[in-house]
């Protein structure tokens, strides 16, 4: 009988540990999303006493949207130079043919952070052809030019995907996701850039007209209607509430809100309307709950995963 009094307490303490581990949620969302927080140098070049350094997230150019920071320093005085104009021009060469991509032609100086900033949306990666970045800057001692072939790799983070298409107006468009880089099961501010091919207008590059330089322009006053859904058959076309369509902000980019109700594969279904409310691209998707059937997608969509 005494044995019972010994065995039972022993049993109690043996079972206090959990059988099934709880999910480490922070780790859960951190591991699956390759994310790049810090800006690192992609390449640099020295002209006389001036060093120009081009930085991007993780020191790498990815297909899709890239924020670009350029630092211009006087190597002798180690001073950052502010009084300059820097132009930025990416060119892709594929078998003698050249094309450009959406980008900021003139980099603007950010006096708080002491660098010049801009962006580039690489439409293809370096497997297709060679990307050449041409930088021109003017300072007291004269004009300088830097040419550099850079490597553009596939974006591993699906949350920064892009898509290109020809709209109903026969124009060629590009939509690139910019944020959130690391989505949460929550309300996420969704930011995208919308660009349009305007190839026949030309700009002046190196004192010469260059059709490529301004071949893409930011699309203004459009609206991107948003309908996020989980495409897997098991999710039965699941969607989320309280999403907001993307409209253009003062920074020229398009801002909206997407809610992800759980982790997994999501499709952002879009309908793009022009300034007159006319549909340029995209179709409405069914809102029916269809368990066991792969979710229908709009003709304009971007897949993400987290």
């Amino acid at each position: 009988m005494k044995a019972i009094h010994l065995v039972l307490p022993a049993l109690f303490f043996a079972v206090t540990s959990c059988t099934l581990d709880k999910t480490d949620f922070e780790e859960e969302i951190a591991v699956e999303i390759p994310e790049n927080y810090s800006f690192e140098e992609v390449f640099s070049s020295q002209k006389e006493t001036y060093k120009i350094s081009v930085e991007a997230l993780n020191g790498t150019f990815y297909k899709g949207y890239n924020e670009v920071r350029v630092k211009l320093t006087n190597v002798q005085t180690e001073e950052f130079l502010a009084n300059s104009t820097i132009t930025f021009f990416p060119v892709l060469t594929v078998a003698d043919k050249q094309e450009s991509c959406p980008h900021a032609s003139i980099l603007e100086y950010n006096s708080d952070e002491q660098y010049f900033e801009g962006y580039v949306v690489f439409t293809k990666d370096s497997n297709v052809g060679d990307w050449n970045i041409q930088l021109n800057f003017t300072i007291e001692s004269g004009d300088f030019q830097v040419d550099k072939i850079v490597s553009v790799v596939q974006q591993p983070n699906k949350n920064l995907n892009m898509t290109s298409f020809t709209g109903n107006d026969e124009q060629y468009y590009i939509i690139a996701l910019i944020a959130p880089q690391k989505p949460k099961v929550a309300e996420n501010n969704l930011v995208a850039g919308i660009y349009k091919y305007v190839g026949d207008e030309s700009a002046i590059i190196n004192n010469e007209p260059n059709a490529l330089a301004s071949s893409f322009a930011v699309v203004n006053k459009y609206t991107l209607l948003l309908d996020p859904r989980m495409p897997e058959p098991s999710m039965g076309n699941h969607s989320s509430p309280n999403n907001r369509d993307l409209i253009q902000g003062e920074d020229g980019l398009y801002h909206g809100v997407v809610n992800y109700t759980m982790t997994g594969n999501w499709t952002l279904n879009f309908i793009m309307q022009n300034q007159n409310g006319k549909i340029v691209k995209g179709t409405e998707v069914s809102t029916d709950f269809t368990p066991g059937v792969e979710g229908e997608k709009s003709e304009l969509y971007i897949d993400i995963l987290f």
Partner: protein
Amino acid sequence: MKTFYYSLLMCFLSSPFYAQKTPMLSDTTQVNTLEEMLIIAKKKKIETEMKMAVSVDEYLASSDQISFIKRGAYAWEPLLNNMSSERSKITIDGMHIFGACTDKMDPITAYVESNNLAEIDIKSGQEGSMHGATVSGSINLKRKNTLFSDYGSEWKGTYQTGYEFNNKQFFNLGNLSFASDKFVADASVAYRKASNYTDGKDNEVKHSQYKKFNTSLGLAYKTSPLSALRFDAIFDVAKDVGYPALPMDLWLSRALITSVSYKKLFEEGLLRVWDTKLYFNTIEHYMDDTTRPENLVHMDMPGWSTTFGLTSKANLRKENLSSEIQVNAYQNIAIAEMRMYPQDRSERTMFAYSWPWVTTRYAGVSLGNSWDISPISQLNFGGSLGLNYNHSKYIDFNWIFYPGAPQEKTRFLPSIYTNYTLFANKFNVTIGGGYGQRAPSVSEAYGYYIYNSFDRYDYVGNPNLKNETSYELNASAGFKTENLNLSAKVNYFYIKDYIIGEILSLGSPMNYQSVGVKGYTALSYAEIVNFSLNGSYKITPNLQWKGNLTYVRGKDDKGGNLPFIRPLSYQTAFVYNYKKLSVQTSLNGDLEQVDYSPKYGEDNTPAYKIWNLSANYAFYIKNNKFIFQIGAENVLNEYYSTYADWGNIPRMGRNVFTSLKIDF
């Protein structure tokens, strides 16, 4: 010590007012029984009229104040005064414990076993606020405690075994106790194993099997003639529990419930008893659907709930006034996950929290007083004030439906009640009223896509919900002679900001069986009236009749019906004793559910009646008492489901049961 128990058996054996009166009388004669108070042991057996080996659920079901939501054969959700379990306080020896299943598959009553309980106290309405804020009342499960022995060391034991033919349930329940003048030990072990049951059409109800193991240990040491230290633990494991009304089953649940308490008695003065307890309990509850290959989505729903707390009470007495002051403080963390897999189950692809790490902290003071105004009248009054704090760690989930909702919320929960009883000859009359508030439950405030297979909606909690406020009136009247006992009770609840799920136009379902999303919202008010009649009559010294009738009506603010309101129900029973033989028969049933609520997923439930029959025979072999029982429930093999059976799953058909109990 004038807490009055609406004890279950008292409901049948005598009017509740007699029950109130009893402790008052016994108190005055208790001068030399202080030691007995040291460890309260009320020798009330956990068994019903019909059956001596019952589950806790079956035992509770024999009360006219309790009805059940059933998702299968196991772990029924008790409804007190026809209100869901969020509105009642369910405790074990005053300890707060919270289930770990978002779908309420594990009410606290699932973690005890009939052989480690001594009695169950049910208090209606605000009188139940002694353990914390409530609307419908409280259910306190009291464990068995053996008394210290004045006559030297003493071993006692009970063994009970039985077999139920319908679901091939085989059970073994064992108790062993040791008592000496300084030391007491209680131990119990129980194991039940049941297969699928068959309904009244002799069809097997798939996924209705279960296995349950429960063991408990209590050790008490007398630190002085008037004080004692006690340690208690319960460990419960349920495995392979099927829920026919759900798309998934329970793979494993485990509960560990522990406490250490110190009790001191005082022979003189204002303070009579001081009892303090520290407790800790942890529950794991793992639902999955590995047994349901037909499901398109595979989902695991593990849940964890851990609580620790303190409860301390003092009993005071001065002349005609006796009071109990109780302090309660606890912290609970509730976590529940949804892990979804595509059909090949190769890897987890989707994840969300259904309870995003919600912390609840509560601290409150409760006071109950009983004042004997005169030999024929008594006034009871009391109240409580509580502070309830919630914190949702992953508030982002809640922000999807309620952007900007606060991550933390603190609520004040006041409560007050009074009632007056008058005894006049064979009659007694009580009238009373109460006011109280409760905080929304974790699911109601922070739940996320919790699938409810009754109405097939996914439920989303609202952190901004207001407290639910209850205004309550109750009255009762009784008549008692030596052979006849009649009582009538009525209570009325007007509940402001009544929390219930309503269809959201936002969002789309997540669980593949669901048809839409409902959000917990507050109706501006709801009303519930409970009415019951109880009677018993000794026809001859050997033959006794008992009966009861209950009627309930629940309406929302637009005059519509509330869900889970029991239709008119009745029970009538005869008990015949002849020497060592006792024969019982009973008939119970519900009338047709007329006032059902299609809006909340209910449909019309037809009337049913169940006839039960049993006989037991007691005999002695070498000073050991044996009781053998054989009986049948649902003798007529009626095919039925009740108003509260999820998915209209049919109840058990004819069930022949046998059991043998040995006291040694």
